[in-house]
């Protein structure tokens, strides 16, 4: 193994090559499956070694000296893998782990990274691997740093270089292409600067003529290149992610930067590899392809036997299981604990250590057989990976499948194109069709026929919380004629279940689901497991139903955010539900299906309203900016109140995330044009926001929930600076406006705010937000109005006026005292 220090000795003086890996796809479907396998996707085995290992190998080969792993879920597994792996032993400082448990998107992860200050140097470029962070490649990536540097040298505004690999012309048939990689890129043919970027399908793309006619610009279009999910970033990228909280994905980022190009002047470049193997593994289809490609040695020089040799058990400290701090009962640990020499035979057959291979078995090609696995007679294996301690029964045929460790497969089974995870037991005469996933601990009974694209989970496996709070939408299993086991009762039960669900609340349905521990119809009487029903969240469904052609910005953002979730774990675009419904009812019961469809449509409308409210609450929790104003009424007041809400949200976020005051002010200023508010309205809204924020949001900790305490907290941290910025103490108009607005608020909310006017004013006075001169002036005017009966004091408001008077008197006294002192 080439040591990174030796390969880049000259670079060492200048900089460390850093790579950031974001180890999550942020695709809910993938994550759901992953949660049932107890291994994150990046640790799924490809040749007995996890995917991640290949990526790290590539990076080390490229001379990267610092690898930062950003994990969201499964940090424990990743952490334990890293600490027990060779990497931490050979290069103790190579890998750093940052856990971003709260992150919901790539943007969140990078924001967390920014907070960690791991990338400090102003000039330190870094490689960013997003979309699960597992890129398989046999190219060395260090030249990308040079390319990016060159781009920056030519154009100092360049902040990012995106990396692509050219695909052949018929991209749709290319196995590396999955639906979620759809993209259209417009760039300069010579400088490779990016001009346009779109991930949305469209029949027609347009290039502005001005751009075409610019001198020295030759437009090149790239349609569906292989997105390597790799980018060389300048450190500014992190700041931009931080400043723009609506950048969730890389797509948002690129779109945003290109859109703001004229304002911010930043540019993005691209680099297109024309040769070399690249495969960014971010869904299950690509995972399978990755495995077979590795077995077929596309990744040369990274091939299983050499990679395996680098982790020889003799040198490994974890060779002795007892020394491992981890529990051995965790079966997944075995994946990386036991290493045995891999022998490579012709026809790409790999044998790891000691295996039992029957003489009458038929091992065709591209097969990996793990340590201590037993292959009995008559077994036919082709393009498959068999993990450790597996047993394959007689006359079983396995094609294009991946079988993890400790799997037992009975006799006369036929398994095609499927993934079978740890500890699965498959009994005799089982047939498993394309793209099935059998998660951990599943047992498939005798004579069962599993149809295409099923995900079976063991009911007692880690029932993830995410499953529980989601609703089963459909039973997407076309009735097979072969499947004798499937009884009518099952159908009825499923349809009743569905109809029940269509009117039931979340909790009800999830509880029903929990009761279904094992679906014996599906996995057989002697089986264990049930189908993982892919439930898209309400958001996604309604999104697919909503027409998306209006070009509302907010809407776009929503789409972008859900972009990832528009694809299932296999990388297929998820079709609207209606198609599935039709396939469901093939009993010919027209009436029932009609009713059913009606109920469905009714339900979807229900959902859409539901989801909006749901959206809002979730947004207030996570303060997303994209609360799309659904009622786009031209009513100005509405606009202002919306704006006010926006300000409140901004302040809240600023408070929670302890943002820089200047940034908030910039942000607020930027809100001004979007909502078209006049300067006075703007100031009014600011004041309102400052004082209403503690009222509307219970952001303080539970013990101090009183209004005053929370107000004080926010004032301390941000609000007073905001007010100081907009309502200058020297400006009479602004100060009076502030006091008038405060007055209005107090009168409106006598209960928590009005009664506290003494404290508020005192605080503002003490902190030089308002000067006494204006308070007194304002108070005098007010008193006059009351005297001339212009203003009526209602009985309820007396508390407020009393308090006010109290303060003013105190102020006057203090003043006179001051005067006295001066004398």
């Amino acid at each position, binding site marked *: 193994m080439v040591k990174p220090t030796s390969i880049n000795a000259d670079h060492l003086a200048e900089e460390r090559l850093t790579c950031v890996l974001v180890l999550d796809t942020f695709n809910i479907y993938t994550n759901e499956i992953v949660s049932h396998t107890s291994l994150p996707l990046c640790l799924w085995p490809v040749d007995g070694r996890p995917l991640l290992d290949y990526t790290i190998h590539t990076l080390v080969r490229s001379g990267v000296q610092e690898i930062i792993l950003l994990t969201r879920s499964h940090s424990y597994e990743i952490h334990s893998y890293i600490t027990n792996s060779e990497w931490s032993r050979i290069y103790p400082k190579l890998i750093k782990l940052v856990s971003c448990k709260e992150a919901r998107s790539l943007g969140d992860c990078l924001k967390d990274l920014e907070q960690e200050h791991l990338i400090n140097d102003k000039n330190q470029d870094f490689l960013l691997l997003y979309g699960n962070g597992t890129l398989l490649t046999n190219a060395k990536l260090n030249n990308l740093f040079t390319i990016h540097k060159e781009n920056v040298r030519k154009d100092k505004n360049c902040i990012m270089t995106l990396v692509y690999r050219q695909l052949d012309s018929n991209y749709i048939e290319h196995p590396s292409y999955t639906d979620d990689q759809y993209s259209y890129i417009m760039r300069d043919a010579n400088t490779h600067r990016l001009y346009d970027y779109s991930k949305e399908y*469209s029949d027609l793309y347009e290039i502005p*003529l001005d751009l075409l006619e610019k001198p020295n610009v030759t437009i*090149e279009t790239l349609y569906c290149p292989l997105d390597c999910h790799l980018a060389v970033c300048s450190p500014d990228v992190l700041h931009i992610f931080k400043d723009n909280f609506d950048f969730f994905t890389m797509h948002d980022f690129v779109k945003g930067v290109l859109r703001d190009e004229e304002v911010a002047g930043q540019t993005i470049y691209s680099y297109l590899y024309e040769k070399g193997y690249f495969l960014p593994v971010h869904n299950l289809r690509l995972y399978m392809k990755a495995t077979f490609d590795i077995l077929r040695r596309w990744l040369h020089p990274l091939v299983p036997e050499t990679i395996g040799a680098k982790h020889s058990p003799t040198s490994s400290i974890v060779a002795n299981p007892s020394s491992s701090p981890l529990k051995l009962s965790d079966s997944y640990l075995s994946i990386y604990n036991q290493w045995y020499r891999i022998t490579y035979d012709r026809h790409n057959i790999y044998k790891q250590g000691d295996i039992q291979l029957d003489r009458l078995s038929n091992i065709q090609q591209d097969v990996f057989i793990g340590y201590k696995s037993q292959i009995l007679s008559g077994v036919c294996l082709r393009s498959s990976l068999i993990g450790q301690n597996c047993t394959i029964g007689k006359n079983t045929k396995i094609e294009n499948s991946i079988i993890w460790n400790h799997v037992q497969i009975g006799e006369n089974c036929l398994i095609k194109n499927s993934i079978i995870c740890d500890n699965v037991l498959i009994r005799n005469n089982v047939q498993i069709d394309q793209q099935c996933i059998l998660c951990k601990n599943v047992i498939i009974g005798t004579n069962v026929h599993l149809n295409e694209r099923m995900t079976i989970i063991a009911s007692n496996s880690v029932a993830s919380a995410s499953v529980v709070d989601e609703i089963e939408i459909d039973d997407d299993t076309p009735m097979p004629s072969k499947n004798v086991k499937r009884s009518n009762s099952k159908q009825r039960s499923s349809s009743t279940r569905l109809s029940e669900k269509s009117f039931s609340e979340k909790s009800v349905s999830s509880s029903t689901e929990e009761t279904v521990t094992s679906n014996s119809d599906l996995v057989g009487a002697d089986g264990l497991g049930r189908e993982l029903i892919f439930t898209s969240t309400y958001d996604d469904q309604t999104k697919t139903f909503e027409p998306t052609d209006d070009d509302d910005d907010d809407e776009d953002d929503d789409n972008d955010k859900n972009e990832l979730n528009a694809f299932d774990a296999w990388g297929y675009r998820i079709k609207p539900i209606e198609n599935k419904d039709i396939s469901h009812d093939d009993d010919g019961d027209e009436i029932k299906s009609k009713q059913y469809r009606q109920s469905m449509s009714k339900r979807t409308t229900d959902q859409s309203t539901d989801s909006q409210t749901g959206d809002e609450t979730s947004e207030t929790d996570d303060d997303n900016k994209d609360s799309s104003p659904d009622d786009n009424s031209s009513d100005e007041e509405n606009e202002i109140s919306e704006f006010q809400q926006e300000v409140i949200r901004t302040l809240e976020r600023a408070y929670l995330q302890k943002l820089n005051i200047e940034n908030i002010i910039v942000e607020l200023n930027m809100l001004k044009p979007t909502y078209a508010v006049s300067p006075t309205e703007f100031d009014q809204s600011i004041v309102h926001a400052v004082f209403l924020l503690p009222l509307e949001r219970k952001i303080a900790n539970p013990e101090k929930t009183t209004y005053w305490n929370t107000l004080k907290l926010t004032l301390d941290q941000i609000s007073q600076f905001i007010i100081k910025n907009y309502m200058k103490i020297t400006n009479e108009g602004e100060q009076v406006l502030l006091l008038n607005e405060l007055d209005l608020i107090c009168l409106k909310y006598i209960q928590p705010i009005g009664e506290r006017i003494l404290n508020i004013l005192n605080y503002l006075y003490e902190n030089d937000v308002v000067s006494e001169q204006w308070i007194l002036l304002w108070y005098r005017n007010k008193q006059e109005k009351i005297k001339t009966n212009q203003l009526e004091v209602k009985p309820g408001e007396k508390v407020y006026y009393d308090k006010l008077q109290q303060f003013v008197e105190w102020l006057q006294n203090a003043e006179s005292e001051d005067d006295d002192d001066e004398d």
Partner: protein
Amino acid sequence: MKEFTVILYAGGNNRLSTDLSLPKPLLPVGNRPLIWYNLQIIQSHPALASSVLLILTSSQSRQVLDDYLSTLNITYELIVYRQHHESTSDDQQQAQDELGTLDILRSCYSRIRTESICLFTCDLYGKVNLTPLINMFRVRDASICMLLLKTTTSSTTGKESLVQPGQKVKYTAEPEFYTVDQSTNSVTSIRLKADLDEYFPLKQNILAKYPRTIIRTDLVDAHLYLIKKSCLDIAICSKYSSFRKEFLPKMIRQMATGQSLEVLISTTANKKMMIRQTTTDLDDHTDLSRLLEQYDCDNKQIRGGCYYSINETQVFRVKNVLSYLEANRQASSQILSFTNEDITFKDRLEQIQISPDCVVGDGHEIGKRTTIKRTIIGKNCRIEDKCKIINCVLLDNVYVKEGVTLQNSILCSRSTIGSKSEILNSIICSNQQVEGNRKLNGETVSPASHESDVYMVYDDEQ
């Protein structure tokens, strides 16, 4: 059976030739007519040199062209096409010619008996290597191959600014966008800028077929096509009258999207009309309808796609006065590359300064103390004493009297310049006299009416 039929369209009656009162193919460039260069291009490739050469020409210029071509050692067939729009005024002639390309082709269509056709207009100037184009046509089994040229920047060096001689006529360049796939050399779309509003549209289905394309604005069409007869059949049957402007972009679009070309064939009425035309017009050979039947089933060839080749040497089309002047400036070096014959003026005459980049025809008579730079002088020219001629083109039998200054001008045959005139950036048409002591700048001296135009060039050879 021969592979190609070469169709040389030598009929042009465009702005340039009306200005210079010469049929365009016979416009002298470096004292050789333009058609000579185009014939050289054809001869340069054996596949084309051995094929049937059809030269299309108008009835007006037929005689002179025939006279000239008979002096060359080539076999050719002259086809005279009718000028459909003779009645309309002269100003629209340029448009007419463009309109007619397909119409003209229709008239000679039955003469085509080969699978492939090489179509080109007689205005290409420069050395073209056709080998890559022809190879590509063969290898890719292309439906059509076209030669594209890089827009040339003028070769004038230094301070000399390019001023267009003669009356200011605006040549509206029509920028075209060529979407090309550089890995396969295929053209996926041709769009005129005039057809677009603010955006250049890209169809998803074309993008899907050609994932990596470049939109080039720096190319011009050389009007040299290699085309399959099956495609030309479609063109002939279509309702379009212009090949380049109407039919070709549509055909490329159809091919890029993988759709059938047959939709371009217009209604049966049109087809019938076509058939009638062939029967009345021409010959006994083959009924067009039968020809079409033969090719109708042959869709594979149509799907062959459109490919391009970019010529790297400096080649351009002689389309207007500017490019004509430019061609002349390069004549000395160009001819050398064709024939190894140095036509630059070598004789050193006493008291006459002639720079080595000049070409002077036979029978010259040059007076003393005359300076000539970067100028092409035709045959039998007479230049008197103390003249200064810079950057000019003098056709045959020009008489320049004493003390004349000529700059950046074109003097057509038999023109006479009176003594001590100063002529800048002007065009003097044939048989015109400029009186002495005149000062001209940016003017065109032409006969009162075009009726008197008689093409009488080269008759001195008889």
